[in-house]
């Protein structure tokens, strides 16, 4: 019975994983990856680890994949275009590496004896994991919290829009109002009223910054 379940979920995981690699549309990749996560959660249940199975579904299939799908939708990714072959020699390299790894696996499977037997156990329960986590492994747990704090700060820093218009900032085309504090007052000869511009190049000229778009057009 367990063998049938193992073949079912293992085959599902491998099939979905191959689909992740084979698909060109990132959204289909993401859906297949959720399939891999779910079948792995089922395998965790078979391995008597119900807590990890639940965390796998909640954290991986829930939080992380929602984030990934959100970014895919946000960036409106086009389908991956047919690649221009420039590093084509890496494909046979990948095949060779995979063959070597599979050979190693076969070697180990044929030589390692005896296999331990899965016995009924309570190590996968939330209580035993929590007891160990908050006694023997308290330090890694605390370090994890620092890691998460660093991730929060890093993500905020990376995605923050700066208030001051820097040289690398992209000027939005169309009518726009700029506050006096945002521009060089000497450029406007008027310290009271904000300046309205109607085009990207005009705004760039008022701000005395180089407009990348017009530069590339000139080239």
């Amino acid at each position, binding site marked *: 019975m367990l063998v049938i379940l193992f073949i079912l979920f293992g085959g599902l995981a491998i099939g979905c994983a191959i689909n992740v690699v084979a698909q060109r549309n990132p959204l289909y990749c993401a859906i297949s990856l959720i399939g891999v996560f779910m079948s792995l959660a089922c395998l965790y249940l078979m391995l008597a680890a119900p807590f*990890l199975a639940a965390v796998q579904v909640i954290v991986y299939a829930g939080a992380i994949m929602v984030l990934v799908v959100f970014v895919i939708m946000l960036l409106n990714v086009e389908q991956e275009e047919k690649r221009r072959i420039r590093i084509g020699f890496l494909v046979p390299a990948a095949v060779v590496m995979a063959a070597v*790894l599979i050979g190693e696996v076969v070697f180990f499977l044929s030589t390692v004896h005896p296999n331990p037997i899965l016995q009924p156990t309570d190590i996968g329960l939330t209580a035993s994991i929590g007891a160990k986590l908050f006694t023997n492994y308290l330090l890694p747990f605390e370090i994890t919290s620092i890691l998460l704090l660093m991730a929060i700060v890093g993500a905020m820093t990376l995605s923050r829009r700066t208030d001051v218009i820097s040289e690398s900032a992209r000027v939005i085309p169309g009518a726009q109002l700029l506050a006096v504090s945002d521009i060089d007052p000497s450029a406007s000869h008027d310290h009271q009223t904000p300046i309205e511009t109607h085009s990207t190049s005009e705004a760039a000229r008022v701000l005395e910054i180089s407009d990348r778009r017009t530069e590339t057009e000139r080239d």
Partner: protein
Amino acid sequence: MEPQLSWYLALSALLFTIGVIGVIIKRNVIAMFMCIELMLNAVNLTFVAFASFFQDVTGQLFVFIVMTVAAAEAAVGLGIIIAIFRNRESLDVDDASILKL
């Protein structure tokens, strides 16, 4: 007949190999990111299999921490991807081959 420990290890190695192949042949940076997640999960399966067969909870704690690292990696990695896309308007890794935005 029950599933053996070696079966789980073989499945994990296969998943990891597929992930490596994906990282090598993919050029969309989000797809590469997802292949890395696949590799992390393959390693997690190894940890859980060893933990269950050897009756040691440490392996499962490792998986717990790996999941946390994966979540942090997702947040920072996707932030970097958005920053690159904002500057280059492309998700092709070959377009972002220098470490400069």
